């Protein structure tokens, strides 16, 4: 099985709202895949269907070879889910929580080792209630990876983090990716997708509007660069040539020289603007 996830023709409707309008997708084993998209674009619905939380209206789906519309315990033990908002079990300590959840899995990782992996060893005996928001997310991740999952879902894992906590969290995710697990994450942060994901899909209006590597998404690598300097700017596909000419004109240093390539954010904003219907 080359693909961890295969989706064909997925649709889902809530009342009058067609939340997902036909999604096709392959996520390869061992890759880090990010879903990008504005709120209400169908991102969470799609992921929750893949996680086995929601029923779909139509489409063929295979997640680790199993239809998530009929989740079994065996299948659940092979995936790990890190939820977006959870404030449960606040009166247990970190160690008690992780030990208890380890009991659900047929072959769990060592609780102490998992707590160390998410960087909470010195908080192991603290009640979850006493932890900061970032530390709580680490407990969520600990519970998500506890069962030795082949596939991990992370739903907006760093929302509300300060920049330092986000960097530390990224390192944690990169570490997980290196163990060979497939990682599917949703995020609002384009720098996060760029830093972590091998491939991204942009969902807007219930459809995938672009899919690919962050560096080449939406023709980003072939888009024209903008060269600006103190007295002007020019859009060009050959910025080096422009700079050489400018350098000749100024006889050396070009005052205020800058070259802009479209950022992932530029591409993203253009992509999600188009399909509003």
């Amino acid at each position, binding site marked *: *099985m080359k693909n961890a996830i295969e989706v064909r023709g997925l649709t889902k409707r*809530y009342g009058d709202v067609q939340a997902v309008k036909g999604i096709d997708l392959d996520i390869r084993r061992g890759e880090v895949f990010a879903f990008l998209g504005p709120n209400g674009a169908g991102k969470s619905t799609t992921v929750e269907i893949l*996680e*086995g*939380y929601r029923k779909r209206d139509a489409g063929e789906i295979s997640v*680790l*070879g*199993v239809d998530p519309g009929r989740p*079994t*315990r*065996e*299948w*659940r*033990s*092979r995936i790990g*889910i890190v*939820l977006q*908002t*959870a*404030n*449960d*079990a606040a*009166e*247990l300590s970190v160690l*008690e929580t992780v030990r*208890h*959840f380890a*009991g*659900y*899995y*047929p*072959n769990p990782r060592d609780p102490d080792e998992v707590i160390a992996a998410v960087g909470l060893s010195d908080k192991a005996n603290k*009640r979850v209630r006493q932890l900061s928001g970032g530390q709580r997310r680490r407990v969520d991740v600990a*519970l998500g990876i506890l*069962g*030795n999952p*082949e596939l991990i879902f992370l739903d907006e894992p760093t929302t509300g983090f300060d920049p330092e906590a986000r960097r530390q969290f990224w390192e944690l995710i990169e570490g997980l990716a290196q163990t060979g697990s497939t990682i599917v994450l949703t995020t609002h942060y384009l720098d996060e997708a760029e830093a972590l994901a091998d491939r991204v899909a942009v969902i807007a209006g219930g459809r995938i509007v672009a899919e690919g590597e962050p560096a080449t998404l939406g023709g980003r690598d072939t888009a024209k660069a903008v060269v600006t300097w103190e007295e002007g700017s020019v859009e060009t596909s050959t910025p080096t040539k422009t700079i050489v000419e400018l350098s000749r004109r100024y006889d050396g240093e070009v005052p205020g020289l800058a070259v802009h390539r479209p950022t992932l954010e530029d591409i993203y904003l253009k992509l999600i603007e188009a399909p509003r219907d």
Partner: protein
Amino acid sequence: MTDTATGTAPSRTAATRAMPSALKLGLSRGAVETKMFFREKDAVVFTFSFPIILLMLFGSIFAGPLEGSGVTVSQLYTAGLIGAGVMGAGFQSLGIGIAGDRDDGTLKRLAGTPMPRSAYFIGKIINVLVIAFLEVVILLAIGVLMYDLDLPSQVSSWVTFAWVFLLGVTGAALLGTAVSSLPRSAKSAAAVISMPFVVLQFISGVFIPFTQMPEWLINIASVFPLKWMCQGFRAVFLGADGASLELTKSYELDRVALILAAWVIGGLVLCLTTFRWKGRRDG
């Protein structure tokens, strides 16, 4: 619920070991639920103090024997409040507790793990049994020490106590589980669930004897389990002397058993058909 592993695709490690059993995980959840309950000091105080304060209040106000029987008013209240305490642990605490679990992400998180869903309910039942048992012990201790309540000496009375307690707790817990789906959020749960419980206590003979109540209210109360649970506990703790105080001059233990059992079955059906693992905001 034996939804054990049926997937066909072998995993890298999991396939070699069996899934932990639902009973084992249910016991494990019971331990964790009980631990969490006793660490939440507010809830502990709220749950245990209510019937205790009421018992001491009523016991002090209405001292002395009831006319035409060898029973004191405080003995009557002890029996009634044991019923109310059991119902409180099963219906009120559990209903509010599950509504909270639905709101704070506990249910969603558990549904995403390989935990069998039955383990959650086994854990809750254990938690309720522990709370209800402690409540009964405390109320009996107060009754015996302060209000001359005589603990029955015959084995048959304790057998009656055991089945009234178990049927009552189970029925109340199933109703509490079913009612937990009604409130829109954890915040509204206390109001939505406590209100009917308070009304039920007033019309079920916990505080006010049936002899002072209009017939239509008695008829309403007779539909719900609290009246029958209290009647069963009166049979245990007031004995033959108190039977003359009952409306029908009898404790009607056969009807108590029948109606409590009917609520257990009805509650189970209600739970199986209406229980939501998701909050309303989750759609």
